[in-house]
């Protein structure tokens, strides 16, 4: 899991405007080994937007994001190998089975089927490997996508509302998995409306504090 050079992501002076409204301004963030960041703020504050900027998926901003000292766009394919991005959408195809979906979701890392089956088991989908996902409930479909967190060897996880549709047990499991990852030297950036009580070393960043004064 550890990469050769120490992992380092620096964002400096990020500004983003949407529909004539400034979402955040001069936003700075540094993510290094063991960092655990939660972005907070009301609906529409710009959490998803910021997360996508940090993941290198959104280029519509001012300021800069550097990975290992380089502009993100220059080293994007390296960066993509080292971070996992999970958005609002699960990228699960309804007519494929749980295993087939997981296989595609982790294709980049070329993992063995046995590992994938173990991962499915760990998210309580044992026995559902060959069930088409349309027969799974919303929470179970999310779990297929979350099973990646067990097998993909990336140090940085960027998770947008990962607790969506999970029941209490699922939430507890995910929080624990995040703790493990961080204490093993991994990094997590997360948005959630849910308070992460069980996670030590958590840094909560309220996006509203980075928003410029609102003119009435």
């Amino acid at each position, binding site marked *: 899991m550890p990469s050769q050079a120490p992992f380092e992501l620096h964002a400096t002076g990020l500004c983003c405007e949407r529909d004539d409204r400034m979402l955040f301004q001069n936003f700075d963030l540094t993510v290094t080994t063991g960092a655990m960041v939660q972005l907070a703020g009301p609906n529409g504050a710009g959490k998803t937007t910021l997360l996508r900027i940090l993941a290198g998926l959104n280029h519509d901003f001012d300021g800069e994001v550097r990975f290992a000292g380089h502009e993100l766009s220059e080293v994007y394919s390296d960066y993509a190998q080292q971070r996992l991005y999970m958005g609002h959408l699960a*990228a699960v195809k309804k*007519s494929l089975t749980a295993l087939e979906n997981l296989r595609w979701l982790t*294709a980049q890392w070329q993992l063995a089927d046995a590992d994938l089956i173990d991962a499915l088991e760990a998210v309580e989908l044992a026995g559902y490997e060959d069930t088409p996902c349309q027969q799974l409930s919303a929470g179970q479909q999310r779990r297929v996508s979350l099973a990646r967190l067990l097998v993909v060897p990336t140090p940085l996880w960027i998770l947008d509302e990962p607790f969506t549709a999970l029941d209490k047990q699922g939430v507890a499991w995910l929080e624990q998995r995040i703790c493990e990852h961080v204490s093993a030297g991994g990094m997590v950036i997360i948005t959630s409306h849910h308070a992460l009580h069980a996670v030590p070393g958590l840094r909560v960043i309220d996006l509203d504090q980075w928003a410029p004064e609102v003119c009435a």
Partner: protein
Amino acid sequence: MSLVVATLKRDLLLAARNPGEWANPLMFFLMVAAMFPLAVDPDPKFLSKISGGVIWVAALLATLLSLDALYKADVEDGTLEQWLASGESLYALALVKALVHWCISGLPLTLMSPVLGMMLSLPNEAYWALVLSLAVGTPVLSLLGAVGAALTAGVRSGGLLLSLLILPLYVPVLIFAASAVYHAGIGMQYNGQIGFLGALLALAMCLTPFASAAALKLNLSR
């Protein structure tokens, strides 16, 4: 690279699970072609004159209609976002998607075309030209169409808009292909036309994936 292969596999698997994806264009192809004798004139002599053109127009429309769904599901369920997040080149994705699209639309149409030829009294000499022109021409349709599909992936009633964008681009393919079939039917050479289609195919393979990739990026970095 492994993601490219995985995507190819997955999309073919999806087509296998939803037979409508490839069966519907085929049925549409058959039905459009069947409407012409009804609307125009069922006399075999007359039909044999227009059959090549009609089959090509039907193939073109069938391809066009099946394009609408090419990227839509992927955008909506987040698959495309994951692709972008993987750092894999979008060029490869665009190529794979066009290839899969051809496998489930153009290829079956090509294989089916002799049956239609029979029904529309295609001259015996023209069968080979028909199949060949479809085999070379439909991939061009898929490639060009994929650009349109990528552009309209985020648009609500994209279907008709897509047609508007893409039909003009299809005109050269249509002209050369129909002329190949026609010339074969009257016993003339048609190498030139097929050669031109081949050149179009080569060009489209090189260039359109760039355009598709750019369009997809635009749709995604919202």
